């Protein structure tokens, strides 16, 4: 059967992998190419790179990193951050990305999702949604790295993105991100049940049970984590063995 995917996430700025708490307080985690190779060796199913560079001046750095990684790592690579037009999607694919993640620009210009998926195929268009709980069973979409409220309902927004041609949803709980208390499982479950396309749960993983819960309780098709892998607490292999013991199908 199809395996649930484990996806280490590398937030990149100024050529380094960093990790913050609830989108702030950045901590250095190392060289992106070295880290990517390490996770590949550990059996990561995919890698996600998010370019969190604030200014557009340093955009070229991420292209260089992706080119280097794609020469050496033969698993799917997703890249996001600063994607504003179809040309940005094309440039990232040409650098070696297999999928491109669109977040703020999908809200500003939903047609970008339709145009990019029509041009390059749904399989390479991931829509990233940063959601925050606003009432019991209600989540709102935020953009600009979590700073700006949109008034959009996260579940309805995810459905709209599916309709426009997204191939996958990367769903991050802003409430949980960096807290190491586990995914927002109710949010994950609400979105995955509403969609036909795969959902990647993100934000809040602090231990291996959190990853298992994302699949078993949240119903996620894939789970994404950063700091538990970056700082050596667990390897991807350990995460998979742990999940396999709980009866979750993984690629070992």
């Amino acid at each position, binding site marked *: 059967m199809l*395996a649930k*995917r484990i996806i280490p996430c590398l937030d990149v700025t100024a050529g380094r992998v960093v990790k913050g708490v609830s989108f702030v307080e950045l901590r250095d985690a190392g060289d992106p190419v070295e880290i990517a190779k390490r996770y590949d060796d550990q059996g990561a199913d995919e890698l996600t790179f998010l370019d969190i560079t604030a200014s557009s001046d340093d955009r070229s750095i991420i292209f260089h990193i992706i080119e280097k990684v794609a020469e050496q790592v*033969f698993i799917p690579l997703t890249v996001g951050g600063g994607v504003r037009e179809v040309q940005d999607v094309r440039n990232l694919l040409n650098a*070696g990305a297999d999928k491109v993640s669109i977040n703020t620009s999908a809200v500003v210009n939903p047609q970008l999702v339709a145009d990019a998926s029509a041009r390059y195929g749904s399989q390479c268009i991931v829509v990233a949604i940063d959601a925050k709980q606003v009432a019991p069973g209600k989540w709102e979409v935020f953009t600009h790295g979590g700073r700006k409220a949109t008034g959009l309902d996260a579940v309805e927004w995810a459905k709209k993105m599916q309709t426009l041609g997204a191939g996958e949803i990367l769903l991050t709980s802003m409430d949980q991100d960096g807290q190491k208390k586990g995914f927002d499982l109710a949010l994950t479950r609400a979105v995955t049940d509403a969609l036909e396309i795969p959902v990647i749960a993100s934000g809040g993983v602090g231990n291996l049970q959190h990853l298992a819960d994302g699949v078993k309780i949240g119903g996620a098709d894939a789970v994404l984590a950063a700091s538990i892998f970056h700082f050596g607490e667990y390897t991807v292999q350990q995460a998979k063995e742990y999940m396999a013991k709980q009866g979750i199908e993984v*690629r070992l």
Partner: protein
Amino acid sequence: MVDIAVVDYGMGNLRSVQQAVRKVAPGANIIVTGEPDVIASAARVVFPGQGAAPDCMREIRARHLDRVIAGVVSEGKPFLGICMGLQVLFEHSEEGDTPCLGMFQGPVKRFASGLHDAQGNKLKVPHMGWNQVHHGDHPLWRGIDQDARFYFVHSYHVQPGDAGLVQATSDYPQPFVCAAARDNLFAVQFHPEKSAAAGLKLLQNFINWNPL
């Protein structure tokens, strides 16, 4: 002398395929091209593909690649189809009601919606991720474990009319054909270029394959 042509018909990104082929054939002259003459001159041809069937077939015909592919195949040169490069070899795709190349008998059908796994979770379409491949004893499987996992991303799957074409199946949740072959033609639904060690092994086997 072009050793390996990776066929470019404007449907998505071929860099991953090129990188992976280079990895297993470091000394080879590998060219990504849509030029019929260059493809026809190559010793081996890799035929990838992404996107929707109607767009793929339109581009293949507009660039006269249907004739080039038929020529390469009839000359007995090793030919590897990947993903859409498997589907378009069949007669007809349900996606956009599209007539395809018809080199293999049978249709291409969408996965049914509303499927669930054994735990009752919804099975998503596209079928995306690493699935187990149950394969036969074709030379391209040499050194690859039975039930090895490969990376898939697709919403449609082929249904060969001739069981003799089938070289591998996978399950989602029902068995579906994920590799088909005849003579010098071999094609897979998954992405060997993104399937880590098992995928590179299959590409290496293709580079070393000398079909009779």
